[in-house]
């Protein structure tokens, strides 16, 4: 599945709406030339049309649609720092520069039932993946609390069964996503594939579970990025064997879980 060739593109903000206390739903109009992305790919957004903030921000593609009137892309983002705070202040109708689609998305599996596991914002690329579901897909959505994450908003966006767990029990099962995944996988005697996105600590647990059972597992990882196109060698992900790094923006952001040296992630 060769990745489409990325392009720089001036998008228009069609929506930039708060869907949870610090979480925003961004919709962008892209015109007709944007190459259709694969689930798991991402874009780099210039939050302000200026040299400050200097670097572009990587964001997973949450949804993508092409119609006669051009394409629309959606992003789900959390305000965590300066760049995302500025992004949240941008208005409908304003232009927004971006580069994409970038990276290597999720790889087609071996036909086993897929368990998609999303921890918090890590669910964003899985929602795009689940918009083109395979028959037996299940999405597990874990987060701390519904007060921090737009659980219902996300649940309504996907067409696969969704199981929710929260740490504070505010929605679904009280617990964390890997536990729920473990239970679910056990029901299928681990004849599954796992695809996970979320905080590295959660991914490391999931990866371990899968490796122990020899279950194929893809994870999507984050890294600080400058160029997003393989040019700066900045987005190093420690992979096996030790001493080897790969680029999250080019060889990733989706990796085989067993390739990752989890203990060396920053």
């Amino acid at each position: 599945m060769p990745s489409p060739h990325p392009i720089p593109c001036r998008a228009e903000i069609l929506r930039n709406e708060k869907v949870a206390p610090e979480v925003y739903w961004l919709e962008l109009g892209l015109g007709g030339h944007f190459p259709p992305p694969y689930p798991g790919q991402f874009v780099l957004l210039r939050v302000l049309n200026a040299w400050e903030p200097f670097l572009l921000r990587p964001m997973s593609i949450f949804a993508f649609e092409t119609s006669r009137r051009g394409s629309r892309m959606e992003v789900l983002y959390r305000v965590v720092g300066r760049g995302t705070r500025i992004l949240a202040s941008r208005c409908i109708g304003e232009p927004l520069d971006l580069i994409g689609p970038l990276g290597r998305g999720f790889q087609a599996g071996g036909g086993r039932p897929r368990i998609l596991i999303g921890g918090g914002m890590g669910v964003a690329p899985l929602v795009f993946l689940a918009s083109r579901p395979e028959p037996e897909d299940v999405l597990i959505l874990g987060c701390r609390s519904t007060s921090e994450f737009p659980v219902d908003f996300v649940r309504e966006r996907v067409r696969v069964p969704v199981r929710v767990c929260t740490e504070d029990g505010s929605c679904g099962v009280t617990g964390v996503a890997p536990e729920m995944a473990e239970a679910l996988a056990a029901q299928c005697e681990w004849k599954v594939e796992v695809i996970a996105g979320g905080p590295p600590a959660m991914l490391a647990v999931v990866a371990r579970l899968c490796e122990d059972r020899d279950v194929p597992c893809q994870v999507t990882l984050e890294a600080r990025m400058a160029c997003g196109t393989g040019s700066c060698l900045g987005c190093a992900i420690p992979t096996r064997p030790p001493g080897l790094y790969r680029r999250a923006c080019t060889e990733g952001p989706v990796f085989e879980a067993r390739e990752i040296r989890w203990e060396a992630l920053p």
Partner: protein
Amino acid sequence: MKSPDLAVHWGPLRLSNPLVLSSGTHGMGEDGPRLFPPEILGAIVSKTVTVDPREGNPPPRVAETPCGMLNSIGLPNPGIDAYERDVHPRLVSLGVPVIVSIAGFTRDEYRTLAARVDRLESVAGIEVNVSCPNVERGGMVAGASPGETLAVLEAVTGETDRAVVAKLTPNVTDIVEIGQAAMEGGARMLSVINTLVGMSVDVDRRCSNLGVMTGGLSGPAIHPVGLANLWKLAKATGAPVLGGGGVVSAEGALAYLIAGASAVGIGTATFVDPFAPVHILEGIADYLERHEFASVTEVIGSLAETQADLSFPEEAC
């Protein structure tokens, strides 16, 4: 009206235009400059290659700073063998002059690298990255000392007749002295500037924003520093100098040319504006037409000098 002539001479090299894509800012050639047509460039400098393969520094390797960025990439590269086999052919296939950047941890390594690159085909020049610590001399960066710079350049030019560029670090007291040493050592051209040493701290976690403590600062923030270094160096040495550091626009490129640069380096800008090279070349052509210059060479070194210079040094005010 005829469109202006963008060709320049940088020492013995003739470039179709002055824009040179800097080392380390376009991967190892696998992906190349993917978002703009590379053939518009005047030349491309390879990622610095070392004798042995290197994996580079632990992440994070990049951090944002005001109008710039820090990097602590750590010179990952596949080593000269794989460079020769895999990387060089890919760079050559881009269709622009390729300058091979080399760095050694000893004079001998520089010698080895020079000899190896000398054997390659389609090499427009060799750029000597002197910002490499000399392990024989307590890890001091070669480019921090005129003596060691001279020695490294002699080692390289002893092995090759190709055009050798010395790429200087700005983290020195007197860049002119280093540039002169490099020319004495046989360099035909100079290049400024490599990155400035900088640091960024995550105040909440009280740790460096990089996987190591310090990194190299690049981007628009350093443009004034690069320009001052270029101007002093070009003026004092008379050598053909490539000027760069922080170029993001035609104006930024023209400033270097006007101050005396034979060619202009661009790196970080392409990360945040992949079409920057295209816009810069268009902007330079526009400028030349608007000011009725027939050729970009007429602009080089055209800076008016005030006689009032240096009534007082810059940093004391």
